[in-house]
């Protein structure tokens, strides 16, 4: 609260006093009464300070090489614990620092001559008190320690007897060491060195057996230099900034004030610097073979990684290609599948259509058969009357008729019979085409049947002046088959033979051949051309349309006959030469004989 007020009323060029002022405020809690008087003094001081006196003060500081307390860094910048602390103080006090590098001795000389204001890292002695000013709070306290090459086997101060020991000249450290060795009666060969770096180099190269240094420097550089610490430690000494006797501005007091302040606060620059510079820097050097191995392994690892990456890239590329191919394949398969499905459905539709068509065809076929059967029946019924009554009249059952009437009635009778045979043929062919025609097997006398049919045709042949001969072998008698159909076949063949023969005659022969009965009808008629024989047994076939006018008939007879023969497991063959005549031969197996 007070600080804020003060800051508000202060001109900007005197804010450098703020730090000091605030620190007083803080310490005020411990000394309330003293604080009050100080406060008053400071207030007055603030207003008394004229702007011209606030110029930046330059403080000259000596630097020498004693890391980590004070040294010049690789970049040429002064560094170390003392430097961190003085720079912090300078920042607070708005000092400008100027560094002057040199050896330890040079530094002390310059300080004594007043060429520099402050020399860091100076141990207090009564002699130095005479020529330098010391502040009261030590910056740090450091033990001195003896360092030697590795494996030196120096275990106590006694082991140093007769050894060459390197040390910085004009140091308290050296004074104390000399006092110590003297008291043990040891003989030491002192090797003076300008700085610790030179000292460590000499020990490492064998120009000295051991050396004195502070523990801080040893911790930092012994291992790097190939040295090790010995158990010989001595003289824990406090170190200060030393100021020239004639230096102005109460530098020691200001330094003390800051140190006391910093030492209270664990977060202060002081502790940060201590931590930064005194932590043992562990340098761990790997053996060459391990480094080479590591390098090799690293190279191998990098190569394998690179190889792996390349491989992965290639695999990815190949995988991509494969995926692409796969996709294409899938697409193709999909397309094919779809095409197949389309084809399949078309096929299905076609099959269904076909099934429907088949159904229709079969239905139509059944209807046709039924129609034909019905028609045949319906046509026969009136024919029954025509044929019946014509017959009655011709027989004279209805009374006497004259010759002319008899002739006319015969014409009616013939026409009616012809119509009847046409109807029968149509009925037969319809039965054949619808698969309803079947034959019945019964035993009958084949010889009798042949003579009966021949007799029925004989009038026709005689009317045309043709001969009609029959030759039936003696062993042709009982035969098992459909008598009605056998007679129908023979009648058809004989009718055709008579129909297509104008001169000569017809010869019927029947004989047994093994288990078969072979019947042939040979005529001396017009014959059949070779090219016409193939279609001879087709339904509705009558060779030469011109013939149909000369020869009446439906053209169904031969196809019916052939079918009937086949139904009885026989064959019907033709042998013909145009103009000379034809021979139709049907062969029927005797079912009883063959069994």
């Amino acid at each position, binding site marked *: 609260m007070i600080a804020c007020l003060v800051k508000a009323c202060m001109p900007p060029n005197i804010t450098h006093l703020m730090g000091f002022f605030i620190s007083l405020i803080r310490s005020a809690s411990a000394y309330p009464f003293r604080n009050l008087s100080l406060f008053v003094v400071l207030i007055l001081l603030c207003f008394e300070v004229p702007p011209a006196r606030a110029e930046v003060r330059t403080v000259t500081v000596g630097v020498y090489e004693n890391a980590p307390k004070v040294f010049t860094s690789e970049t040429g910048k002064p560094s170390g614990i003392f430097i961190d602390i003085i720079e912090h103080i300078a920042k607070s006090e708005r000092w400008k620092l100027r560094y002057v590098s040199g050896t330890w001795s040079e530094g002390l000389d310059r300080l004594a001559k007043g060429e520099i204001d402050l020399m860091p890292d100076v141990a207090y002695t009564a002699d130095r008190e005479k020529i330098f000013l010391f502040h009261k709070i030590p910056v740090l306290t450091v033990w001195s320690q003896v360092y030697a090459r590795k494996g030196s086997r120096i275990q106590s101060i006694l082991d140093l007897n007769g050894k060459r020991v390197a040390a910085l000249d004009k140091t308290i450290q050296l004074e104390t060491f000399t006092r110590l060795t003297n008291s043990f009666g040891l003989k030491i060969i002192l090797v003076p060195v300008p700085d610790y770096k030179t000292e460590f180099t000499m020990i490492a190269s064998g120009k000295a057996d051991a050396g004195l240094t502070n523990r801080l420097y040893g911790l930092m550089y012994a291992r790097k230099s190939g040295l090790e610490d010995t158990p010989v430690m001595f003289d824990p000494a406090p170190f200060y900034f030393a100021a020239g006797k004639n230096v102005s501005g109460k530098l020691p007091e200001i330094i003390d004030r800051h140190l006391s302040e910093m030492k209270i606060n664990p977060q202060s620059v002081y502790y940060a610097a201590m931590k930064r510079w005194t932590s043992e820097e562990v340098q761990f050097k790997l053996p060459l073979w391990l480094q080479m191995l590591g390098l090799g392994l690293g190279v191998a690892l990098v190569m394998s990684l690179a190889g792996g990456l390349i491989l992965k890239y290639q695999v990815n590329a190949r995988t991509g290609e494969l995926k692409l191919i796969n996709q294409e394949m899938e697409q193709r398969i999909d397309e094919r599948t779809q095409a197949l499905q389309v084809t399949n459905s078309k096929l299905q539709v076609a099959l269904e259509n076909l099934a429907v068509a088949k159904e229709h065809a079969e239905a139509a076929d059944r209807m046709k058969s039924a129609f034909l059967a019905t028609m045949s029946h319906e046509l026969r*019924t009136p024919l*029954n009357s025509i*044929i*019946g009554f014509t017959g*009655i009249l011709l*027989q004279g*059952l209805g009374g006497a008729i004259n010759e002319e009437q008899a002739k006319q009635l015969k014409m009616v009778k013939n026409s009616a019979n012809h119509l009847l045979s046409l109807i029968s043929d149509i*009925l037969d062919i319809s039965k054949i085409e619808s698969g*309803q025609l079947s034959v019945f097997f019964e035993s009958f006398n084949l010889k009798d049947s042949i003579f009966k049919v021949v007799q029925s045709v004989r009038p026709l042949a005689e009317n045309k002046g043709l001969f009609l001969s029959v030759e039936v072998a003696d062993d042709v008698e009982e035969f098992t088959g459909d008598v009605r159909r056998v007679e129908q076949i023979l009648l058809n063949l004989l009718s055709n033979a008579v129909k297509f023969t104008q001169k000569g005659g017809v010869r019927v022969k029947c004989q047994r051949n093994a288990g078969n009965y072979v019947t042939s009808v040979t005529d001396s008629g017009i014959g059949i051309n070779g090219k016409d024989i193939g279609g001879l047994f087709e339904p509705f076939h009558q060779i030469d349309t011109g013939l149909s006018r000369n020869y009446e008939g439906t053209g169904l007879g031969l196809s019916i006959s052939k079918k009937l023969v086949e139904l009885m497991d026989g064959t019907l063959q033709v042998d013909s030469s145009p103009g000379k005549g034809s021979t139709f031969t049907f062969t029927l197996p005797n079912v009883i004989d063959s069994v």
Partner: protein
Amino acid sequence: MKAKILYIEDNEQNLYLVTFILEKHGYEVCAATDGQEGIDMAARILPDLILLDIQLPRMDGYAVARHLRTNPNLATVPIVAVTSYAMAGDRDKALEAGCSGYIEKPINPDTFIQQVEQSLTKQEE
């Protein structure tokens, strides 16, 4: 004495034709125009021969034949089917139903009397 023949037939012309022929040849003919009438008449007059049309209205010839055969008085009377049916198996069906013969329509006036006499003769045998 000439035999007594029962003719069951619904077609008038056929009935007339057959009756005329049979009567001209001296047979006694009784006619029925449907199945039931035929069955009743057969049971009453006990004919020597029954000529049976197959295509009859209501009860067909096969049913009539089976009925006739159930009458023991008519068990040995020959029944001849007279029909224009010429499809496969018609003959078998007629024989199965109890017919003893089969004459195809249209009848042949020249051979019809011969066929009738054969049927009567068979029965006598």
